């Protein structure tokens, strides 16, 4: 596997213009100066609450939106509006909702075959069909069902169709946007295992976006925590769980309901006061300061940068006080 990083995101900014009145508009900073990298064959988990910009990060990388600023370098090539089409052969996306992300008027064969058509990845009809059947088998779908429509499948199977479609172009990198949150727990485990198998078999790297910390922790090598458009902490998965530093990460971890009654009884919970501020009216300085119990005057003046704690640990935190 080559050295260096598969994906380098630097100072990514994604602002949206929102109408606030008849003629008034305001800028919504969905992603504000986010930098991170994903290694070859690595899984980076991206967690945060709704509205923190985690989905927007994924979409900006794929150029589903035109970013306001910053650079994305994929496999040594800069991603721009011009270069994205061929690069989409190497990065793909799996969406959250397996019900709305598949075209109800297409058969499974055509859904999985569409990326092959777009990128012209076959020379004969037979090759196309063989590829599709191979992909269906890879994700654990019955090849006999190739001529069925998406509505004939259950949620878990539909998510498999979505994954097969992403894998059709043989990508190096897949952005998974909440791929298991719409599924029942008993089915979730099937899909999580499949992601892990595919990583082992095909060496794909993932950006795994989710709000379920236990799931993210299970699947990721490293985890980034986002709050209001900024990354507040990145660390290897075990380190983040065992030694969280940022006050937001601390409360996020302590808020997760743990399916183990004995642990629950011992647990000391840090309950955050209030709600997430609106991204239209971001607090000055550190975005978390309005709910943070360590907040000082400095936090209101300047936003802390991500700095490494302990040389070579890979544990980066953006906080003045911890």
């Amino acid at each position: 596997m080559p050295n260096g990083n598969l994906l380098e995101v630097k100072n990514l900014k994604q602002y949206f213009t929102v109408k606030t009145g008849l003629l008034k508009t305001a800028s919504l900073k969905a992603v504000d100066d986010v930098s991170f990298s994903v290694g070859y064959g690595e899984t980076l988990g991206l967690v945060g609450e709704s509205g923190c910009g985690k989905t927007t990060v994924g979409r900006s990388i794929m150029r589903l939106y035109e970013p306001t600023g910053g650079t994305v370098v994929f496999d040594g090539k800069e991603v721009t509006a011009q270069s994205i089409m061929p690069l989409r052969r190497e990065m793909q996306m799996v969406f959250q909702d397996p019900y709305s992300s598949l075209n109800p008027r297409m058969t499974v064969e055509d859904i999985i075959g569409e990326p092959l058509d777009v990128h012209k990845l076959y020379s004969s009809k037979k090759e196309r069909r063989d590829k599709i059947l191979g992909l269906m088998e890879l994700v654990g779908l019955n090849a006999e069902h190739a001529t069925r429509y998406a509505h004939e499948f259950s949620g878990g199977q539909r998510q498999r169709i979505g994954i097969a479609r992403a894998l059709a172009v043989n990508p190096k990198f897949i952005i998974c946007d909440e791929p298991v949150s719409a599924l029942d727990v008993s089915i979730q485990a099937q899909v999580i295992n499949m992601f892990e198998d595919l990583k082992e078999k095909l060496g794909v790297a993932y950006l795994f976006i989710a709000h379920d910390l236990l799931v993210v922790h299970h699947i990721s090598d490293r985890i980034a925590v986002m709050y209001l458009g900024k990354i507040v902490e990145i660390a290897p998965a075990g380190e983040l769980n065992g030694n969280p530093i940022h006050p937001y990460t601390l409360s996020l971890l302590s808020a997760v309901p743990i399916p183990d009654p004995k642990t629950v009884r011992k647990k000391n919970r840090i309950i955050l006061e209030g709600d997430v501020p609106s991204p239209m009216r971001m607090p000055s300085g550190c975005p978390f300061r309005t709910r943070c119990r360590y907040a000082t005057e400095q936090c209101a003046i300047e936003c802390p940068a991500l700095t490494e704690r302990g040389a070579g640990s890979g544990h980066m935190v953006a906080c003045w006080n911890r």
Partner: protein
Amino acid sequence: MNETILQVKNLHTSFFTDSGQVMAVNGISFNLEKGKTLGIVGESGSGKSVTAYSIMRILADTGRITGGEILFRGEDITKYTERQMQKFRGKRCSIVFQDPMTSLNPVFTVGNQLMEAIMLHTDKRRGEARERAVEMLELVGVNEPRKRLKQYPHELSGGMRQRVMIAMALACEPDILIADEPTTALDVTIQAQILELIQSLQKKLGMAMILVTHDMGVIAELCDELIVMYGGRVCERGTVDEIFYNPRHEYTKGLLRSIPNINNMKERLVPISGTPINLLNLPKGCAFCARCDNAMKICLERLPDEISINENHKASCWLNIKDMLAAGKEVEERAER
């Protein structure tokens, strides 16, 4: 001391649709004691919400309770007239729904909706009802309650809306609160706030609660006892500790193995194979047997009886019966010797 407030006996609920009879709940029984929290867990389509809606009698038009009794303090509410039901709902038993976005009416102010609930169930007049509404909003931790009364649901965040829903449910001090996935639509930090709130209010007001959820984590936090449902039937019931640490039904075991836990982070998850059951076409035997790794011949043919594992724990699985028979046989053989 232990006063049974609600007794559900052999409840059957079906939906009559164009494609046939959807048998959502097939013979559920449980008792709810005063001040206790009963969890109902299961995946989508297991009948957990339908059980809750049957108790409130708020099923969709196609749904009907086809058998069984629901006894509230000994009175069968399935025999109640709609008028009696209206008195029962809100005052005796309230429900908090999953989605705070759709369960508040967008065209009325929060105050309007809260006061409606209060005036309907008590003889308070407008002014008193308003005071009560303010008091309730304060109780559930909504800041600036007087200002909130004049706001519309869309002006509030998800967590605030769920607080309003809880305030509304508790405004008439019901004996039973049914919480149907109360935090599923919320973020974890807000979920933690709401769970804490529900827990403290329950203690303060001493009501009984039925918590319907698919999240084993939420169950572990809040419940005393637990029912695990699959295919509209109870697979297993018992105290939370018994179910988590000594599961005796294959479905419960599978469910617990398939969720990521802090103790199994680097281990592979063990999923339950297959897909959820089709309620249009229930099998003759155990509903779970198509997905069960240890299914036996009898599982296909006959429903297992619910047997006691110990005084705090019951399960409906042939494997337990087999184990017991095997153990029983051994005992007999020894006696013969």
